């Protein structure tokens, strides 16, 4: 379950992934990027997910150019109207056009989600690399702190960060970013522990390379795969976190409310059957989260190819 909590510990999954990068490619040699792209394109669902995300970006940013739903005015005569002529998705409890609002709130969701996802990735990667490379008691202290932070339910942390620091976009971006880097930091630390004992790192150190140089030129580029894969997943988590806050009534105030806020407003009218207030924002959140997760999964196969191992069949299937 998407829970704003560390992902399930997964044992090696021999059943999935083709390990496309390991296959000797026929024909002339291809660049790393081309081979990676080919491996990604094999994941049809992930390609579709990229399409969905592109559609949403176009919808939210170019949509207002073509569709002029007035989202600023409260019209008492038009409260909670079902979809009809001139209002393709109906109106909300304040008479505001839902389609126009969907575009506006979508921009908030996408901006906060992507920004805090990127920020969390930067924090997580740097923290993990420093802890892993430093080793010893510095590492122990840094990782124990992460353990402690992970023991605080992230929903709680978010709830009071948002409740206490004033509700602006910047606060939300910071709050979400600051609560979603723990998983990545553990992965990066693990990578760094393995990388720092490699010969080329020792060689660099022997030639007089200083720690910052080793970290930025030799360690971090080699952990980039982990970072890229997880950024996509972190963006999904950030969108989820933002929606959760709005759903709990602790989100951004209008006119900066996001899809979660729209959904929460609609959910209040569930018993009246005003479906047009619930499903457009709800499905948008689901589609964006699912798409980001699918892209992340496909990227993992591109960056961390695994070969399927021999599975003994208990009976013919």
């Amino acid at each position: 379950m998407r829970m704003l909590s560390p992902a399930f510990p997964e044992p090696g999954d021999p059943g999935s992934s083709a390990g496309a990068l390991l296959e000797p490619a026929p024909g002339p040699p291809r660049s790393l990027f081309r081979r990676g792209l080919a491996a990604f394109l094999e994941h049809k669902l992930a390609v579709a997910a990229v399409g969905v995300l592109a559609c949403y970006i176009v919808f939210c940013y170019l949509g207002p150019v073509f569709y002029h739903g007035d989202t600023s005015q409260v019209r008492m005569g038009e409260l909670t109207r079902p979809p009809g002529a001139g209002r393709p998705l109906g109106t909300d409890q304040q008479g505001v056009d839902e389609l126009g609002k969907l575009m506006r709130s979508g921009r908030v969701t996408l901006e906060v989600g992507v920004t805090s996802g990127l920020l969390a990735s930067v924090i997580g990667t740097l923290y993990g690399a420093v802890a892993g490379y430093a080793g010893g008691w510095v590492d122990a202290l840094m990782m124990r702190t992460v353990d402690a932070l992970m023991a605080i339910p992230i929903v709680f942390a978010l709830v009071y960060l948002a409740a206490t620091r004033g509700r602006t976009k910047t606060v939300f971006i910071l709050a979400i970013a600051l609560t979603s880097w723990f998983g990545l930091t553990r992965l990066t630390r693990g990578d760094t522990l393995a990388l720092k004992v490699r010969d080329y790192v020792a060689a660099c150190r022997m030639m007089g390379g200083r720690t910052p140089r080793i970290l930025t030129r030799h360690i971090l580029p080699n952990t980039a795969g982990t970072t890229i894969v997880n950024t996509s997943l972190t963006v999904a988590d950030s969108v989820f976190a933002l929606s959760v806050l709005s759903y709990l009534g602790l989100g951004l105030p209008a006119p900066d409310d996001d899809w979660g806020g729209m959904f929460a407003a609609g959910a209040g009218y569930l018993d009246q059957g005003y479906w047009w207030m619930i499903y457009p924002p709800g499905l948008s959140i689901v589609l964006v989260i699912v798409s980001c997760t699918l892209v992340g999964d496909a990227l993992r196969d591109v960056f961390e190819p695994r070969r399927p191992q021999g599975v003994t069949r208990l009976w013919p299937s």
Partner: protein
Amino acid sequence: MTPYLIRRLLQAVATLFIVSIVAFWLLHLMPDGVARGLLGPRATPELIAREEHQLGLDRTLVVQYGIWLTKLLHGDLGTSPVYHQSVSALIGERLGQSAYLAALALLITVLLAVPVGVLQATRAGSLTDHTLTTLSFVGYAVPVFFVGPLLRDVFQVRLHWVPIANQIDSFHSALIQPEQLVLPVATLVIGLLAGYSRYVRSAMLDELTQDYVRTAVAKGARGRRVLYRHVLRNAMLPMATLIGLSLPGLVGGALLVEQVFNIQGLGWLTVQAAQRDDFAVVLGTTMLTALATVAGSLLADVSYAALDPRVRLT
């Protein structure tokens, strides 16, 4: 084992200590929330100063933390300035129904996840496997707060299969109205099942690649016997770990489910308190959940060693 246990316990205590510092510091970042929130926007600065003095908020953060921690170590979580009740009493009223909901969901999830995961692993790569994989992916990715209202819309509002939500405000009311728990538990199970069944599937596949399975099949043991006598037993070991580690997720999920279905449990209390700047209650529930999380991961490690004689904890 004993030295390991002692070290692990010390680590747990250290973790909780760091949690308490972080949580306390975070909460007291509040600009002028508590007293202002209690007295309303028209309170004069003098009134606010007096209220803050009464609540001990005018002392330095370190002193406040010291007082709070001393009380905590004596089992006193403090008094809520909003509810004028002790935090332990408030939590006590809410804990029962939350724990009941979470335990039911966890039990049903495990009971469903094992057969689903086994089915997928023994038919890895088949249409059944792919279908269930896709379904569990959707179950994992779709947020709880969407599944909840969706189920309510379909089964309560449109089909009338389940009566319209009554509020559940005590453990007793949760016990006597089992029909009210169907949808909340279903919502949690849908969210949890994906992770658990994936885990069982992976663990099963791991075992199926082992030599002892090939040996058993080669000597002529029947598939069913190999499955129940050999593979399943070994594949179930990590379940203990998984249950221990999934506690924070369960708590977070329960918080949302309580919100959707109007169950006045621990999560509901926390959200209410956060909305009303009631730092004492939020601190209390946070520490309680952190304790559960740390205890969960400790139990996971220990039970793993207890169940698998090959694992030596040092």
